[in-house]
């Protein structure tokens, strides 16, 4: 192969679409390393602290698209203190210096300041797409900078970020000459937006295919916009408060009828059940439907809607759909691949919304199901065994039984056998989240059968160190392991230290790992960062030199080429 001209090798590499494949070919020989790195256009950094930004830019000078992830996944659930880290600025600065041809930036769970957005806006003349997911630290001023300076911007996609509202003018900062937008998502913004400016922007961006509005946009405004964007493929509605006899509502129905390309719907805040009828004309074309922000729609109305959606592939819904509603989904949506059922009543006792019955119904009707996130009040082994048999194609299986450590209500047994059936049957399983009462046995099963597992989330499970060891020794493709409130200690942590260099990260909180154990790990494995994260209200009370026997509240371990990071706050100790 080395006798081929570089252009040919490069051309062959073009066919490699996955990061992993490109990473592997770059290790074959120096020539291939060189060809690969100069031709790499898309770079994915799964942990922003695993490598220095400058090094990435130096290695891939031709980079066009960069994705970086920051905080560990459990940060989503408030388990990571606020100022832990994950700053975007160093990455943007390095890219501005080393890869000014950057076109796309995707950041997840990072702290993005207005300053970084301003730098971004000014540094990359060809910048086309900004996607921020679960980020924080910026305001609408930062967005104004993006709107103002990014000529030719194609995509601005803000998903579930915490954005401080500094006024509605940011959207007006898109110049009149901006006609390039194809995707605009500002659903997570809480504040008002200049509706007139938005309507004009939407009207002149003839290639707009994805538009997701925030709650402040009225139905009237939506109707006007839809009339100008008949080719829209994805729509997130704004507020859906409208009197069904109002003229705006009629115009909306009419506009929906014209949107023959609409495949994806979300939003629906405040929608009155009656107004759901307005979308019946689109339902037969829908492949994606997200009703998880619509608590006002109860089961019966949901069901009426879903009966029209026979092409649905992805459905996100609240548990007020109930088991009966899921049965309707099962009989209607034969193409369903992904289902997420969220809890509508997190704190209250409420009535049992969905149970194992709903899941079993889904599994018997939707044989193509491969991705599940299911919050329920109870689950049985029998149900899981049935689901495993019906749906062997799961790649993502996340079950959350709301009561931690709850056993099978029929037999009072742990759910080891049920999850065991899942991992045995679903050979392509890449992601698994466990819940309910679980002993070490479930980990024995996981270690033995979940050969392709890459990410495992454990909460309130297991009996002893053996559980964790089964997983570490067994799952050879494991990349991310996150554990909370489980009795795994130093013995488990130190059993297979080499494993952690094959993984992206390990998170353990409220387990039995001690400071001594963490120190031992750090000493043995210099290429890991072992972070001990103390709760901030504690750090004042911490003794100067806590003993090694002291149990560690939160520990985050990750492989890194960058050494200890220098931006850690004082409550994070890097051993």
């Amino acid at each position, binding site marked *: 192969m080395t006798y081929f001209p570089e252009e040919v090798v490069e051309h062959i590499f073009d066919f490699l679409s996955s990061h992993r494949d490109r990473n592997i070919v770059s290790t074959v020989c120096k020539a291939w390393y060189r060809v690969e790195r100069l031709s790499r256009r898309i770079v994915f950094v799964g942990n922003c602290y695993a490598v220095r930004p400058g090094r990435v830019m130096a290695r891939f000078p031709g980079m066009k698209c960069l994705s970086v992830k920051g905080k560990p996944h459990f940060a989503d659930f408030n388990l990571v203190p606020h100022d832990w880290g994950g700053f975007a600025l160093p990455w943007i600065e390095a890219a501005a210096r080393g890869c000014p041809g950057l076109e796309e930036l995707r950041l997840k769970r990072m702290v993005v300041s207005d300053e970084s957005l301003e730098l971004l806006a000014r540094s990359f003349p060809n910048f086309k797409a900004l996607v921020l997911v679960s980020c924080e630290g910026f305001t609408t001023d930062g967005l104004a900078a993006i709107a103002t300076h990014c000529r030719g911007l194609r995509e601005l996609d803000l998903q579930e970020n915490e954005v401080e509202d500094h006024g509605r003018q940011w959207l007006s900062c898109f110049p009149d000459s901006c006609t390039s937008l194809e995707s605009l998502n500002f659903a997570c913004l809480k504040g008002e937006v200049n509706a007139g400016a938005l309507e004009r922007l939407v009207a002149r961006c003839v290639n707009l295919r994805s538009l997701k509005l925030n709650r402040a946009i009225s139905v009237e405004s939506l109707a006007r916009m839809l009339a100008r964007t008949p080719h829209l493929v994805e729509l997130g509605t704004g507020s859906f408060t409208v009197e069904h006899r109002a003229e705006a509502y009629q115009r909306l129905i009419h506009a929906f009828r014209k949107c023959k390309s609409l495949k994806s719907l979300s939003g629906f805040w405040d929608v009155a059940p009656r107004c759901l009828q307005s979308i019946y004309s689109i339902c037969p074309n829908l492949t994606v439907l997200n009703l998880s922000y619509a608590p006002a729609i109860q089961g019966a109305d949901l069901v009426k809607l879903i009966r029209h959606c026979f092409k649905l592939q992805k459905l996100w819904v609240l548990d007020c759909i109930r088991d009966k509603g899921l049965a309707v989904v099962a009989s209607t949506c034969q193409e369903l691949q992904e289902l997420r059922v969220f809890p509508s009543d997190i704190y209250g006792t409420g009535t049992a919304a969905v149970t194992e019955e709903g899941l079993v119904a889904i599994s018997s009707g939707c044989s193509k199901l491969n991705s599940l996130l299911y919050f329920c009040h109870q689950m049985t082994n029998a149900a899981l065994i049935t689901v495993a048999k019906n749906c062997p194609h799961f790649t993502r299986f996340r079950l959350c039984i709301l009561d931690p450590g709850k056993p099978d209500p029929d037999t009072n047994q742990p759910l080891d056998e049920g999850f065991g059936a899942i991992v045995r049957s679903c050979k392509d399983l890449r992601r698994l989240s466990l819940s309910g*009462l679980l002993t070490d046995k479930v980990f024995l099963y996981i270690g033995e059968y979940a050969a392709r597992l890459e990410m495992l989330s454990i909460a309130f499970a297991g009996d002893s160190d053996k559980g964790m060891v089964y997983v570490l020794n067994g799952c050879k493709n494991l990349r991310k392991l996150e554990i909370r409130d489980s009795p795994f200690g130093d013995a488990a942590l130190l059993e297979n230290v080499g494993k952690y260099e094959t993984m992206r990260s390990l998170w353990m909180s409220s387990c*039995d790992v*001690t400071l001594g154990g963490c120190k031992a790990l750090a000493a043995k494995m210099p290429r890991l960062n072992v972070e001990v994260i103390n709760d901030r209200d504690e750090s004042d*009370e911490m003794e100067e030199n806590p003993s090694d026997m002291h149990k560690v509240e939160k520990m985050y371990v990750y492989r890194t080429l960058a050494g200890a990071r220098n931006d850690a706050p004082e409550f994070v100790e890097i051993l």
Partner: protein
Amino acid sequence: MEEKREMEGDEGNSAKSQVAGIGYEETKLKLAPPCSSASRAGTEHHDRKRRRDLSVESPEDPQNPRQRNGGTEGVREIEGDEESSAESQVSGSGYEETELKLAPPCSAASRAGTEHHDRKRRRDLSVESLGSQASRHGKPPAAKAPVVGWPPVRSYWKNTLRSRTFVKVAVDGTPYLRKVDLETYGGYRELLTAVQAMFSSCFTIDNGNRLVDLVKGTEYLPTYEDKDGDWMLIGDVPWKMFVSSCKRLRLMKSSEAVNLDATSSSS
């Protein structure tokens, strides 16, 4: 050893034991003898199950700074891991099983410096849910106190969905009711505007903030039913107080309201 723990638990004032004092107010309960292998054998599984039991409502919780994270305090029963190797004992993971909700340490000496941290770490699984084992003491189970980060839903989503203040809105003379989420409005004017939009065919808001049916000329009075079941005129109390006490809204025709006044004043 146990007395020491009791004392620390009662010192709700010192910062350390406040943090550490999670659930140690349960000295009111009977303590089971500390860990002994004999008592553990054969009850392993059962105890594991009870590990996640709800804990008891502690009367001193409101003072506990951990309240904001864990709500009602309680102690998770900890499974003794007698089957794990000696190493885990060295590592300090010697959990004990108890009959009740207290976990006296197995060996106080080795835990001296770590005791309060351990206690702090005991999870307060005061999550209320169906079918979960209730408190054994006849006390009501801990009410609606979430564990930190459980269930695992994004706080962004939780905040967006938080609204539980839907109230029914009835307008005299219309065939069906609507529901509004009071928390989405900043004040009375916004609320009335929204209600007017919902029932736009029925009335509009005039300059004087009154709701008037332009066609028929009837005036509507916005009233609400409060927590005590009384029908009140909207607008008297501060907005936030109104939001927390309003159970339903009714827009009465003024003529009827007069009659209502007469009857309610006598009750």
